[in-house]
């Protein structure tokens, strides 16, 4: 549904986005993560046709936003970083205006505006001037606006920013509800949000892609090489024995022996699963394994790791 091929955007000689390629398939909800200034907003503006890329190609729902802007734009619902509102208009007037702008047929206009207000909880403030609304409500008007015209693709730049916790839950519910019938690309720097909503995550930093994977794989992949276990055994001896297992790269005692039990952390060699070997080794020595777990890193840890690695790598590259 959304395809980017080697997209770059240059501002005054500096790359805001550099050689970015990724795809979002129909019906997917994809999280777009990155620290502030990573190029998330620029990328979204390129996808929505607000600005053309300096290099590379974009395709949305089969149309190039530069070559065929009207066709591409009429298939995208876009919530910009700051909701594009006219404070002197009432909610109803504004949403009616946006429906016209998006070429919603007259016969469907009232229905779509009502539906958008209902979904975003705006029905009660329909006649209020947007300028008199709280930040949370304004954000909701911004989201309602993106739903008009029933676009198959939704691009949401920080959809829950400025909302209180209850509103955040409501908007997340709404995005989940939309997920089935829409292709959604949403940016965020709130990681649990992305974990809760998205099937897939694209992480960029300094305008470049640093990771792209399914949310669960991304959490698993970084933890792949690490196990935690509790063994009923004398601590030094069990550590020594574990180090002899070929699949094991390193052993660390996390909690020293208490009541005959020891908690250890084991690093596996890359690409290897050490669990069966550990089981047989400890069984042979008659040391019962009480617990064996593969702790999942949170997305937050993965994110921090990927994003903080980058400058070091860049430094090596130029050296």
């Amino acid at each position, binding site marked *: 549904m959304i395809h980017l091929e080697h997209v770059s955007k240059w501002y005054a000689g500096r790359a805001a986005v550099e050689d970015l390629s990724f795809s979002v398939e129909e019906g997917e909800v994809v999280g777009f993560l990155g620290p502030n200034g990573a190029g998330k907003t620029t990328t979204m503006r390129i996808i929505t*046709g607000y600005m053309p890329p300096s290099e590379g190609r974009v395709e949305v729902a089969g149309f190039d936003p530069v070559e065929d802007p009207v066709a591409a734009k009429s298939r995208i619902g876009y919530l910009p970083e700051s909701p594009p509102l006219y404070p002197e208009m009432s909610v109803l007037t504004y949403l009616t205006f946006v429906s*016209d702008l998006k070429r919603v047929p007259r016969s469907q206009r009232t229905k779509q505006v009502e539906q958008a207000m209902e979904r975003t909880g705006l029905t009660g403030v329909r006649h209020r001037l947007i300028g008199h609304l709280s930040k949370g409500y304004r954000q909701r008007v911004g989201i309602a606006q993106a739903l008009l015209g029933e676009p198959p693709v939704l691009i949401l730049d920080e959809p829950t920013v400025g909302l209180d916790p209850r509103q955040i839950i409501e908007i997340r519910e709404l995005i989940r509800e939309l997920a089935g019938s829409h292709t959604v690309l949403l940016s965020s720097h709130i990681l649990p949000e992305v974990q809760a909503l998205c099937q897939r995550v694209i992480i960029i930093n300094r305008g470049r892609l640093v990771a792209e994977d399914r949310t669960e794989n991304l959490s698993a992949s970084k933890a792949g090489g690490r196990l935690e276990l509790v063994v009923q055994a004398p601590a030094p001896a069990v550590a020594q024995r574990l180090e002899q297992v070929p699949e094991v790269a390193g052993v660390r005692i996390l909690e020293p022996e208490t009541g005959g039990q020891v908690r250890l952390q084991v690093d596996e060699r890359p690409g290897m699963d050490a669990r069966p070997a550990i089981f047989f080794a400890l069984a042979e020595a008659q040391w019962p394994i009480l617990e064996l777990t593969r702790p999942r890193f949170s997305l937050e840890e993965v994110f921090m790791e990927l994003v903080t690695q980058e400058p070091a790598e860049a430094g090596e590259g130029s050296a």
Partner: protein
Amino acid sequence: MSGLGTIYRKELRILLASPLSYVVAAVFLALGGYFFWLFLANTALASLSGYFGNSSIVLVFIVPVLTMRLWAEEEARGTAELLLTSPVSLGQVVVGKFLAVATLFAGILLLTVGYPLVLILRSDPHLPTILTSYLGFFLLGAAFLAVGLFTSTLTHHQVIAAVTGFGLLLLFWFIDLAAGSVTGTLRQVLLALSAFTHFEPFTRGLISAADVTYFLSVIAGFLFLAERNLERRLWG
């Protein structure tokens, strides 16, 4: 609903909701009332030529105030992002905005209908001249509005848009003055460029194709420049 019509109605709605539009209209009408009285008191002629002559200079100052927010405000509010990611063309945005502000200007002009009415009731003015004066004044104002709309696309600061607009419109005026102090071809060129040279025949009851074409060209030219400028800003 066409994109042009949607932009037009939205822009007119915002212009009519803005206190600035009413302040501009009030200033224009108050000064106009003064000019109308002044000309009658000094000449005792049943003519609006003095009124239109003086008001054309007022236009130089009020038009940039009407047009300064047209695009600059969309940039500052972030609503440019909505307009430019919607299935409307930049041409529709520019022309829609121009027609909206021209409608407001026509509305303000309509409020001056009292002056010719007074003349008709109390005297015997030459009606065709009054009508051509109105037409010429509207064309002059519309051309200035196009210039102001163009300067609004240069920046997201409304004041900068207005000051740039004053500058360009004053230049239109000073071209006229410069033409008085040179001779030959240069004088012909300067006169041909001057908005007031092309406006003045209308106040004497003359409509010429050349004058009408001049104003329509200025409008088309500056709307084109505005559209190009928006396009360029996006690629920047």
